[in-house]
């Protein structure tokens, strides 16, 4: 990172190689739109390069990068600014055609049909969650961030994040048909 701070493009390439998948996956999960992911993903790494000198050691690099990512995603959602829709085959992300299908993911996770159905229902229900609950699940579960890291990125108390995690998963049980209300 110190070399990137001095404008070293090769050092930046290593940072980009390490973090492009977590950042782009987070954006894809939060925004659910490959076009938006591509435009915001470009902006995230462009800003990381441009503003590298403002990064302060010994802050965790992933925390700094995800703070930029989250802020851009929130700004984007706030502005509702959509990039022009293009043909999906022209997009430059790898893996989104298969990993965006919950049934495809579920079928690779297990051979049991019933379990596949449950997994796919839960994954599908993720998009129905309120944004704050979805965010904590995306960061904590899919990005494997601790509550302390999420606290720094979101500027939200850890106890609130724990509550959102609990209620988010509880709501998922209902949305995916596991709760008593839906059964009744």
């Amino acid at each position, binding site marked *: 990172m110190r070399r990137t701070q001095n404008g070293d493009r090769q050092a930046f390439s290593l940072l980009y190689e390490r973090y492009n998948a977590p950042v782009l996956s987070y954006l894809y999960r939060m925004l659910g739109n490959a076009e938006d992911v591509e435009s915001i993903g470009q902006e995230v790494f462009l800003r990381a390069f441009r503003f590298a*000198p403002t990064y302060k050691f010994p802050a965790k690099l992933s925390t700094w990068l995800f703070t930029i990512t989250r802020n851009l995603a929130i700004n984007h959602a706030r502005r509702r600014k959509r990039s022009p829709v293009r043909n999906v085959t022209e997009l*430059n992300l790898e893996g989104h055609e298969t990993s965006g299908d919950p049934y495809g993911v579920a079928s690779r996770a297990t051979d049991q049909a019933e379990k596949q159905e449950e*997994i796919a229902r*839960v994954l599908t229900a993720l998009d129905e969650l309120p944004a704050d609950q979805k965010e904590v699940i995306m960061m904590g579960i899919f990005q494997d961030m*601790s509550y302390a890291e999420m606290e720094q990125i979101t500027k939200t108390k850890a106890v609130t994040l724990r509550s959102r995690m609990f209620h988010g*998963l509880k709501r998922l049980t209902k949305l*995916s048909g*596991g709760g008593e209300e839906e059964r009744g």
Partner: protein
Amino acid sequence: MSEPLDIESDPFLMQLTDALRAGPGSPEWHTAVTKLRKDGVQGSSEHAMIVAVREHLESGKEYRTVRAGPGFTRRLMDRIDEEAASKHRSWPLATIIAIVGGFVVVALIAALVYVISPNSEAERTAELAGLRSGAFGQTVAQASFDGGSLTNWQESGGEQVKLDTAAGLRPATTQPSKQYMNAVLSTTSTVRPNERAVFEVLVAQPSDPTLIVQLFVEEKQLDASRPEELAWTLQNGEAQVALPDGRFANSGTKFSAGKEGSLVRIAVGPTMTVVTSGGRELYAGSHFLSATNLRAFGIRFLTKGGRAGDGVVLSARVAKP
């Protein structure tokens, strides 16, 4: 709207939310799920369903996982090259004329301001003189690191390494690490940005050559877009002053202190600072800290772990006039 959880007073909810984040296979998961299945806890059927959903999410972690393809990478690197090149690109004549014209206008305004307020330069000089030789008799925070309790100080940010305060301040012994870990002690008391204050610290020569020692003045009420810290840094036996925008105010200056320690002094005023160490003035000039945010003072160690060595910071004091 979901009802609030009383997580802080319910140890099991704390365990459960830890487990839900860490996921199946983690020690947190094993502890919470074992308790849930064997002991039974209030609301356990609901908790069991939540646990099942969490297991499904673990199985579906691949969902919406993407990485950059060659086109995405090429476009990004082109944009970065373009941005780097634009910094060196020559400007059109009209732009140069406009910029020169702008400078002339700014210079005229600056001259006018100087004529109207002839004391501004004198004020800066006076502020520096006050920082160099003024008396700072009102102690805001003080520590002698002899094993006694520390009032007006707190450990912060150092999740990875604890501090040992028994015989001089130093990072506690830990397992060696390839990465730098940090340990921080900072004042809980603050000073207002329009006040003068001095941070005087007696620093001994670290026995660990990889240890980095930083003494800093930081802004509270941080705005993420602003710089926030003025720091004296000791690394590889050399002392430097880092300004909030990341620039170093001086080239490395040899710092030799021995076990008795040498005084490092950071004096800050409303706009200026004077930093001295080992009797040498390393920097005197603008500190570029915010004019509105409160200021706190602190000591940070960056360590690669291993044996702690002798105490590095022997005493510290923050004072106002």
